[in-house]
């Protein structure tokens, strides 16, 4: 019995992927699709039910590089410590100008801070900047173009989702994934 217990401990330790403490929790709708999200090189755009848009990459170097590119564009410079801190964030929904202040907050305050979401309007389209910066960073770091996944809350409204899709289309990114939960496949009867 003890042997078995240790076997299980080892098994769970090796397979465990710790659940990340993301800035926003979304309840994704379910679909019958059985395709899994790729393990590496995924850029996730999260849309919550309050029309906020969050962005994340699963690779820290990609986040670092993207931060440098976007920061330079909006006249923000970051110290190495701030960059490191930023790359540890699982996801973020901030304006480029807010990032510096946010990463310098202590951990508890950071958690309590309500992130406003990345601006997506045509005058201040920071989401497009992030996507393009992270995309080229992903290509240089991992040598592959990233998969782009949209993770929307079931109650997210259509205009926001459409706006995000339109932004991607304008950047000629026409193929992407919608993150869903698994639902058993029903039989289409005739």
């Amino acid at each position, binding site marked *: 019995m003890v042997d078995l217990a240790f076997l299980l401990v080892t098994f769970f330790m090796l397979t465990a992927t710790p659940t990340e403490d993301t800035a926003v929790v979304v309840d994704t709708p379910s679909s019958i699709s059985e395709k899994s999200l790729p393990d590496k090189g995924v850029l996730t755009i999260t849309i919550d039910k309050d029309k906020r848009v969050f962005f994340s990459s699963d690779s820290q170097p990609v986040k670092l590089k993207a931060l440098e590119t976007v920061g330079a564009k909006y006249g923000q410079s970051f110290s190495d410590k701030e960059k490191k801190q930023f790359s540890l964030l699982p996801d973020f929904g901030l304006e480029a100008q807010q990032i510096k202040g946010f990463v310098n907050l202590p951990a508890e305050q950071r958690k309590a801070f309500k992130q406003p979401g990345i601006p997506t309007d045509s005058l201040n389209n920071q989401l497009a900047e992030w996507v393009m910066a992270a995309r080229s960073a992903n290509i240089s770091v991992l040598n592959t173009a990233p998969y782009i996944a949209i993770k929307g809350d079931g109650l997210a409204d259509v205009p926001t989702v459409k706006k995000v899709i339109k932004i991607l289309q304008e950047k*000629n990114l026409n193929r992407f994934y919608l993150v869903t939960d698994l639902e058993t496949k029903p039989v289409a009867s005739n």
Partner: protein
Amino acid sequence: MAEIQQKDSGGGKGGKKRAKKMSTKIDMTPMVDLAFLLLTFFMLTTTFAKPKVMQISMPVKPKPEDEQQELKASDAFTVLLGENNKLYYYEGLVSEKPQLQLSTYSADGIRQVLVNRRARRPSTVVLIKADDKANYKNMVDILDEMTITGQQKYALVDITKDDENLITTSGL
């Protein structure tokens, strides 16, 4: 497991002290406790199911010189996603004043309609138009129905004023 070690007493007559024989068994209780604690911890924190994804491909931005093909009215089938999880559909194009029908996302709602439609006309093109008041779940649901019914050609299209009028005037 925790064994009680009995001191043997009374046997020795002469009072000559011998080295106490050490037991070769180790008390494993704490280790097993720890093992189970870890086991429980990892079992509870592991997320097994990786999220599933649905792939969608949007059309490439049309270039001005490209010729666009007109959709035949007889092939067109439009699904409108309304507010409060309502679902409408009509056959043909909106310019011909089609008959709007109400349906649902359930298995015997739009799925049956789509299956029947496809049996009648395999070249059907489904146009999905989501109203601004619909939610994202509706969008995923209807894309899912396309996969379930094996629809070959479908597209997410912006809703037009005419479509919105059609919903309001129909009173469904």
